[in-house]
């Protein structure tokens, strides 16, 4: 049919079926439509029971991450025009349990994210009368790249280590830990290092590098993890050579 494109959407309705299957939908092809527009068309016009997450439609909220033709993508930023030759296969993010259709269960990520203390830790807060904690543009520049993470979890869906070892803390959580470690206002890096230097932390990463490639915000979690490894080794040497020094 001219002017249409086929979407093969994974369906999983736990009350009806034991395992997922694919359902085909013909949707109008518009060159300015993204995959999310096609899913919204299906939901509005063809099958209202299709379930998926989305919110901002502009690559900020990180809700609409799915596998598009086997690649983790934000569906609000993936144009149908990239797939003119064949059907577009849409699946839920890989390696996560599927709740329904394209919706994955993300508790595992949320628990891991919280475990790395992704917030500014101060040993002692200065009194309000002394004003805010100031930062120069250079100090901001050091961690800004890692602060761009939108928690979309595409990096987890790209990481075979996470798929094979679900205990691995994973790319985004480590990148966000690094974001706070590199913040000049933070004093909690040793606390985070205790968590991340465990086996399922930074050492679980074998540097496949796919996390950085699929990141829609160019956060480079793989880089963050390798930098963290270097830091952990330096800290270990420091504590080995000078056991009396403060961590």
């Amino acid at each position, binding site marked *: 049919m001219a002017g249409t494109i086929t979407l093969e959407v994974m369906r999983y309705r736990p009350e009806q079926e034991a395992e997922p299957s694919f359902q085909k939908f013909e949707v109008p092809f518009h060159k300015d439509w993204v995959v999310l527009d096609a899913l919204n068309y299906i939901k509005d016009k063809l099958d209202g029971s299709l379930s998926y997450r989305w919110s901002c439609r502009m690559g900020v909220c990180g809700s609409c991450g799915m596998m598009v033709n086997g690649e983790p993508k934000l569906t609000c930023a993936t144009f149908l025009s990239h797939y003119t030759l064949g059907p577009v296969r849409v699946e839920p993010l890989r390696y996560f*349990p599927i709740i329904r259709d394209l919706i994955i*269960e993300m508790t595992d990520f949320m628990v891991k994210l919280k475990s790395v203390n992704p917030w500014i830790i101060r040993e002692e807060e200065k009194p309000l009368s002394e004003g805010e904690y100031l930062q120069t543009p250079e100090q901001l520049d050091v961690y800004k790249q890692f602060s761009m993470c939108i928690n979309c979890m595409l990096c987890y869906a790209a990481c075979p280590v996470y*798929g094979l070892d679900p205990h691995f803390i994973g790319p985004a959580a480590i990148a966000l830990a690094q974001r706070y470690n590199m913040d000049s206002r933070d004093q909690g890096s040793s606390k985070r290092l205790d968590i991340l230097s465990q086996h399922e932390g930074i050492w679980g990463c074998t540097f496949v590098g796919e996390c950085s490639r699929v990141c829609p915000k160019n956060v*480079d979690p793989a*880089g963050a993890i390798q930098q963290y490894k270097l830091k952990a080794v330096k800290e270990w040497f420091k504590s080995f050579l000078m056991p009396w020094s403060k961590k």
Partner: protein
Amino acid sequence: MKGTAAYTEYHPKWYRTRVSTYWWMSKWRYFKFILRELSSISVAYFVVLTLLQLHALSQGEGAYREFREWLKSSLMIVFNGIAFLFVLFHAITWFNLAPKAMIVRVRGKRIPDLMIAGPNYLAWLAISAILAWLIVRG
């Protein structure tokens, strides 16, 4: 991260996809990663080969000549040639990844990746040239 999967018992209907044993064959990039990991074996192999060579040297001239003859066999030349290609692949991928781990800032600005990888390649070339000179001269 111990115990983070405990929540599943309340949701037995969640569907979990098993990761295939052959996941690394699904994409060229994954396959390249596995090749990079396997190339470590070649690095270890050349270390063992050097140790064996030193051992043969310590056993006297006859043993060392025998060892060299063994290395000259067509089978060993082909095997070592393949192992050497893997070592090259390992070194190149390693040097290319070095800028990811080493962030150097000069006057607050991150220096380009080439400035990190470049000196690694130069050092590699220089050391290889010195070794080649020593071998050819000797």
